[in-house]
């Protein structure tokens, strides 16, 4: 069905208005950029670019995994809580007696262990969904609730502060002037976009999301594909958790990743990935996140209070999804 519609749409003549509606995020970004260049003081600087990219990086990193999950027709509400767990584990490792005694090994473990743990918890989400045939929204609600609690329990709810330049490189470091997390973000976006377009796994993800029954009949290993997708989402959340605590030089399990699930979902939705699954665009999610970020920056830089920016953000999410729905025959 989806494919047939896609073919029909390809044959239909592309007019300018249809293009604008389909690429609403790009159009809006262009408009906002033009506005900023004209109005906002000091906009066209390297620093402005870096500030915005740095702030948006964690949302994009989480959105990459979320896009793959939504491509299978699912959703992952647990990402914020997994960030809290990952962010809580890393300082525990490099601040432990072992981590202090063996700095290099401690730092490597502080990178690897939290990400792996978050990935395994994501795998648990996938297992729960496929084994018990539970709706993704309910299944991932379990770790949304329990996950932050786990992060709070292992740190006893305490704020962990630290100064560890080699670990914090992921959040504070720069490569040729580009913030490290921006490179991580771009690498993950590129890898996920390539996976979706060019690999068997990517085709399988879209097949599962497009029509699960047909995919199963066609021999797609539906359950393993789903488990992997949720594991990847967990891994992305784990990386994002490390970035956040590195930037803050502290880890607070009560706050790390709070509300991130909805930010990431909003970015994916604005980016044009439909929630019905079967179609997905990782680059779109990147653009969606950039649009939301740019909008907020524009408002703040021109003296609009943050609270009003929230209202505008809500309107832009609804407006973007609405315009995409109108431009797509369904």
């Amino acid at each position, binding site marked *: 069905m989806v494919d047939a519609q896609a073919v029909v749409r390809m044959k239909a003549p592309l007019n300018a208005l249809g293009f604008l509606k389909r690429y609403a995020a790009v159009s809006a970004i262009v408009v906002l950029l033009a506005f900023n260049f004209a109005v906002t003081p000091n906009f066209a600087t390297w620093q402005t670019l870096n500030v915005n990219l740095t702030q948006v990086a964690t949302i994009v990193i989480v959105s990459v995994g979320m896009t793959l999950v939504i491509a299978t027709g699912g959703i992952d509400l647990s990402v914020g809580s997994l960030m809290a767990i990952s962010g809580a584990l890393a300082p525990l490792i490099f601040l432990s007696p072992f981590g202090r005694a063996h700095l290099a090994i401690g730092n490597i473990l502080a990178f690897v262990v939290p990400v792996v743990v978050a990935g395994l918890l994501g795998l648990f989400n996938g297992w729960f969904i496929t084994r018990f045939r539970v709706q993704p929204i309910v299944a991932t609600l379990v770790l949304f609730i329990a996950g932050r*609690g786990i992060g709070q329990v292992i740190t006893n709810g305490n704020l962990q502060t630290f100064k560890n330049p080699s670990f914090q490189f992921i959040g504070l470091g720069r490569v040729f002037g580009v913030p490290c997390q921006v490179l991580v973000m771009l690498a993950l976006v590129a890898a996920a976009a390539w996976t979706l377009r060019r690999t068997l796994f990517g085709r399988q993800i879209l097949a599962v999301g497009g029509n699960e029954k047909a995919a199963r009949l066609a021999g797609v290993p539906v359950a393993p594909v789903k488990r992997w997708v949720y594991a990847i989402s967990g891994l992305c959340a784990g990386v994002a958790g490390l970035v956040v605590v590195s930037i803050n030089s502290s880890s607070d399990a009560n706050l790390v990743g709070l509300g991130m699930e909805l930010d990431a979902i909003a970015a994916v939705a604005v980016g044009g990935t439909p929630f019905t699954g079967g179609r997905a665009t990782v680059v779109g999610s990147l653009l969606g996140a950039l649009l939301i970020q740019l909008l907020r920056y524009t408002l703040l830089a021109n003296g609009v209070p943050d609270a009003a920016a929230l209202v505008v953000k809500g309107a832009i999410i609804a407006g973007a999804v609405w315009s995409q729905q109108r431009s797509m025959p369904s």
Partner: protein
Amino acid sequence: MSALPANANPTVRSRFSAWASQQRVLIALFLLILFGALRYDHFLGAFNVLSVLRYNSMFALTGLGMCFVIITAGIDLSVGTTAALASVVSAMLSPMGVLPGLLGGLAAGVAVGAINGFMVTRMKILPFIATLSGELAASGTALLLAHNQSVSVSYDTDFTWLGQGDFLGFPVPAWIALIAYVYGSIVLNYTSFGRNILAVGGNEEAARLMGLPVDRVIFLTYVQSSVFASLAGVILAAQFGAGQPAEGVGWELFSIAAVVVGGTLLTGGVGSVATTLAGVLLLGLIFNVLNFENGMGWISLSAYWQSVVRGVFLMVVVMAGPGTAKRVVRLGQTKTG
């Protein structure tokens, strides 16, 4: 009804499984209360019972609204910030008296609900995204009105009575929740609005073809959810003496969890008001039992354990539940296509 023989069987089956899971949540609630009553001295004492009811009445109200929305196969992510907005509005109006405070809060709820309902029914935006926008808008409005600070309520009027007062020896918020649940139960089981809600959730397309006012039913369900959420917000302001614009974070997902624990299917078409209340109380009592257990001195679990225990509890319910497992429908898959 007899015109749809093909649909009859699965409906009966899913109704049965829903009934089974409804009984289970009541049994679980009974066992937890029994456990507490036998183990702790003052568990069933008036003070503990009344304070549990007073506090959880807010979540009972958001859960009730959410229950109706979920029965229509929708979802409402805005209940938490709607409560925050209502708490701010009612606190600002509280110097004028109880009624203006209450009505102001409810008006805020009607506004948010109408916007949500408009987005879902007219703009055809998925409930998840539409109410996510509503959530942000309500939160932003609350922060704007309150200038990012909590707004103290007036103690010159009787406004705090709504949250702290008693009526016939029973907390006022608990009365409000009780009346809301009686209303909800009657509406769902004995009115045409309730039947329409069930029909829309069961099969929206069929309901449309039968000539039911589908859009109006869905619209009203979202308004109702926001009204209950704003009622919870008014109670929040009255109980803690301040309108709190930043409160309500995570209430929406907690309410969804309570509805799921109560055995209502997220696929829509089936659900129960009474077991939603049982779900709310069950999740609330876990915290209470944990406090008592700490008081016994055998263990010392921090308050943080309550979310872990709640999560595990939700997992066990879902694992054991034939209800949620029977029909797997992807999020966002609209039945009209």
